[in-house]
């Protein structure tokens, strides 16, 4: 067992524990924080596996932007989680637990069936330049499609987010010749 | 419904100018000499009527002026003045048997001085009497009473009061002889 694998498994344990905690906490802020810890673990795993760019993006986008937005909303709502009965909890957990079970079985299956395909954990490095070049040359179409999609979404958001009095004015104001 | 859309260029220009002005003004001030007076080394002479520590003054005869009429404590917005009046054994004069100002509460508004009918309570320009203990801010009559008449050295309330402090009724300049009840003269 190399130093790398030790770190790898350590990070794995941390990530999994944090995720589990995030799922089970009743305090929303605590749940969000556990999720952030989990993201950090993931990010470090990426770094360990030789993708520093991805690692940075993971932190910037998921931990830095999305979770902050989550926290922002939680804090604005100030909703306290009410204790619930086991039945209710179970109703909610039925499907996720089934799916989780299936994926667990599959993972186990793959691990056991492909016993010969083990790799020793090795330090690796993919420079951002390579990553960028790879992304834009090989996958330029999906990148463009996704960016276009985001652009459309942005326009939509801008439209929805317009000040309401502008909308009202547009609807109610009689259009006169002068204005036209 | 017409709305004046601001001219974006004008608007931006004025914004930039505003920011520029702000920086310019602060930089000009940066280069000026500070106006601060450094307190313990330099003590600014205060005007005579500035309001600081409170004293109880004496009338020209050297007798304490306060008659403990409770007007200062009544008018005090922070209720920092308390006292109890009593009759002085020698001459039946009204006086404060104790008089207490809690300077920890006092806001030096000067209303007590305005209310005082005998000009006994006066504010002085002295403001340097900090204490570490709150209880040390409670000044008793002994601490407040001074040996002079303060800003009004010549006033004596009892010369104008119309009641006796010493001597008979009618002894003051503005009074007639007491009426003789047993006389038939008109």
């Amino acid at each position, binding site marked *: 067992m190399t130093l790398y694998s030790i770190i790898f498994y350590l990070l794995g344990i941390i990530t999994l524990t944090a995720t589990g905690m995030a799922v089970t906490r009743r305090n929303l802020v605590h749940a969000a924080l556990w999720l952030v810890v989990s993201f950090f673990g993931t990010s470090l795993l990426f770094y360990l596996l030789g993708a520093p760019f991805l690692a940075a993006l993971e932190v910037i986008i998921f931990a830095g932007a999305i979770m902050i937005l989550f926290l922002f909303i939680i804090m604005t709502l100030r909703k306290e989680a009410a204790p619930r009965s086991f039945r209710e909890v179970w109703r909610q957990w039925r499907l996720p637990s089934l799916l989780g079970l299936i994926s667990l079985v599959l993972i186990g299956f793959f691990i056991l069936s492909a016993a010969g395909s083990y790799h020793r954990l090795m330090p690796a490095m993919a420079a951002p330049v390579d990553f960028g070049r790879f992304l834009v040359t090989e996958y330029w179409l999906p990148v463009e499609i996704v960016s276009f999609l985001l652009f459309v979404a942005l326009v939509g958001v801008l439209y929805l987010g317009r000040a309401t009095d502008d909308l009202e004015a547009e609807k109610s104001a009689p259009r006169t010749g002068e204005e036209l | 419904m017409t709305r004046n859309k601001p001219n974006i260029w004008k608007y931006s220009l004025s914004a930039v100018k505003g920011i520029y002005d702000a920086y310019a003004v602060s930089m000009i001030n940066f280069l000026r000499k500070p106006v601060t007076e450094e307190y313990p080394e330099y003590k600014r002479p205060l005007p005579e009527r500035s309001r600081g520590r409170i004293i109880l003054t004496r009338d020209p005869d050297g007798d304490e002026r306060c*008659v403990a009429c409770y007007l200062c404590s009544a008018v005090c917005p922070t209720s920092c003045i308390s006292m109890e009046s009593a009759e002085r054994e020698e001459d039946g004069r009204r006086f404060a048997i104790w008089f207490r100002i809690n300077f920890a509460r006092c806001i030096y508004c000067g209303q007590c001085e305005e209310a005082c009918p005998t000009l006994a309570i006066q504010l002085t320009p002295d403001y340097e009497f900090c204490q570490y203990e709150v209880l040390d801010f409670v000044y*008793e009559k002994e601490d407040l009473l001074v040996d002079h008449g303060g800003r009004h050295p010549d006033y004596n309330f009892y010369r104008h009061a*119309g009641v006796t402090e010493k001597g008979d009724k009618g002894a003051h300049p*503005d009074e007639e002889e007491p009426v003789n009840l047993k006389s038939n003269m008109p």
Partner: protein
Amino acid sequence: MPRLIIDNQKIEVPEGTKVIDAAEQLGIMIPRFCYHSALGAVGACRLCAVKFLEGPVQGIEMSCMTDARDDMVVSTDDPEARAFRRFIIECLMMNHPHDCPVCDEGGHCLLQDETVSGGHDIRRYKGKKRTFRDQYIGPFVQHEMNRCIHCYLCVRFYQEFTGYRDLAAYQIGYRVYYGRFEPGQLESPFSGNLIDICPTGVFTDKPARYRGRRWNMERSPSVCIHCSLGCNTVANARYREMLRQEARLSESVNGHFICDRGRFGFGYANLPDRPRRAEIGKNEASWTEAVRALANRLTISDGASEMKKTAVLGSARSSLETQAALAILAGSAGWPMPAYFADPHQSSVCRTVVRRLDEGLAVSMKEIERADWILAVGADPINEAPMLALAMRQAVRNGGKAGVIDPRPVFLPFDFTHLPIPREQMEFCLNHLIHSGIARQEADDAGEAVAGFYAQLPEEAEFEEAVREGISTLAEGLKQSEHPVLICGTDIVPLSTPDLAADHAHLLNRIKNTCGLFYILPGADAFGAAMLEASAESAFEDLLKAIEDGEITALMVVENDLIGAYPNRKRLETALDRLELLIVLDYLSTPTVDRADFFLPTTTVFETGSCFINQEGRLQYAEQVHAVGAPIRQLRGRSHPPREHRDEVPGGDPRPAWRAVADLVRALDLDEIRLYTSGPESWLTGSKGPFRFFQEKIYPPREGRILPAESEVAPFKSSIKKEAKKPEAGTLDILFVDRTFGAEALSALSEPIRRAEPAAAAFIHPKDASELGLSDGDSAILRFEEGDLEIPVALNNDMARGLLVIPRKPDLEWQTAGARFPRIARNRIAGVRKETE
């Protein structure tokens, strides 16, 4: 019913209403000095000038002198009227000194208010001011004549309203002087009202002189507890010290005024030797320690775990809350029910009163003022209940007739017929008087019961000439009377008199359709105490007997000076010696407190909100005035008050007596948690006990009479003797009586009252005196079996023969006589000649 318009508001008032009163009903306060609703109008001060715009009167007129009439249009703030009033104020202020800062009236001075509101703020008068010399007019009132504005209120009150003559107006014009001819104490026991009534600072409160301004005071409506009338007062305290009392307007009890005993009698609350710490044995202890130790002593004495049987003695001066709490304590602990009167005579008389008084008979003092024939039996109003004398005087001023059947030398400030009948013959005299005042026909018409009762009354009587004349005058008055009132004392009357008085009141009630009955009781809450005793059939005599027999070994005395109040000192001492445990709760330092094994300090009426029931069954509530604690003046020594932070208020241990009882109930683990878990409303209101009248759970309760509509005893059951009882020859009757000043236990401790009280003296008829060889001022030594009593004698013509009237002063050892109404053989009286210089 004239209708008029005042300041654009319409109002309709009864005929004869003054314009000033009409305006007041609208909420418009026209400035005034000399007008007082109790004294009427004289138009002396000219300040109430208003302008009559239209109607029968036109122009500037005095609103207090003008009757409201139809079509009047009045403007109170017409510029002309305002200018007039301003001019009047300026004139009144011309000679007024410049001494508001040193004047005690400052702050609640009507002259100050009117000067400021009238707009006169700068004195234009440059001449010399007129001055007067002041007088010493007693320990109650301070005189400062320079401040006078000549409104005549003082003299009108003093002479017209109270009927005393020694304060008068002298001189003429602007030299008019209000005072006495010679300096000296004012004779009227109502002189304190001059302080309230004077619109400026001529008469000010002497005991509270310089002690604080109105705005400094903690003021609360209170009730006077110095006699049974329950006059309404405003109590003023400052720095945890009671400083002043003022009269509070009560339409049905005391009107605008109170007597000096009530006004200046609060001094007991401030006494420096007032006990403020609980004591176990003679050792000071904290409240909780003392209560716990007491509970232990009460439960595990004699090694047994059951509770020690304890006798409880309450008091007539305690509040209703305390009295009721004691009853609950005794009931739940399985003790004998508490007694409230140490004096057996008071106990039985008061129980009779409570049984007999009902809504149909009881009258308030306001109704006495409207009576046209008043007969007092065994009552000395000015000494026992001073404000009653004032009410009677108003009745006489209104044309009523008044008479008093009493052996004592009774003085009243109005014309009345005094029948100085010996104590044994008072009932006979009353019977005879009523008989002579009612025609047989009238009695027969009123029904069988009345006629039967009337028939028993004695027709013939042998009295002295003067008495016979008096009886016929009063009988004549009774014949013409429409609103008669019977007043019955309880102090010296025989036990059967209250019953008899009630029967006579019923008789007159049947015949005249209206007759009031007015008892005078011994103590502020004697009525409540008597109700409790009557319902539980308890009496201190029984308890004392049980103590003497050794059945009861513990005694709890609450706010009662047992040693001072029990008439037989020797018997009481023996009984107290047999006790294992004497528990005393009180707010005074009394001989009983000194003997206590356990002592708990309690609060005065000023430190607790408490209920009292006055002699006419009126329930009144006295609010708390100030917090418990030693007065700051007593803490400060010579200089300023101490400057220290403390957790507790010094001297703040005392608690209301009912709270002490509640604590004890909790410590004893008794089954009465309502006593300590909630306020008095929960246990004063229950259906148990005598206080059924607290129907609604309102605390403090509403003021009002709590009498039954009909008394529980049927009338006309008194046994009536046809013959007068002859006084025993060779002996003198001794009466221990109340005095206005100095005999009532609480007020006697007050400093100004002590200064005002006359020297102790026994009244004796001159003929008896000459038989004994005594002259005025000599001292008589009464040789009782238990010891001697020495007292100077004062001769008085206006009293019954064979009688010695001795004031029941606290410092006089009258209990050595050994009985409530002792007789003494003439040969056991020795005289000591007055020393002449």
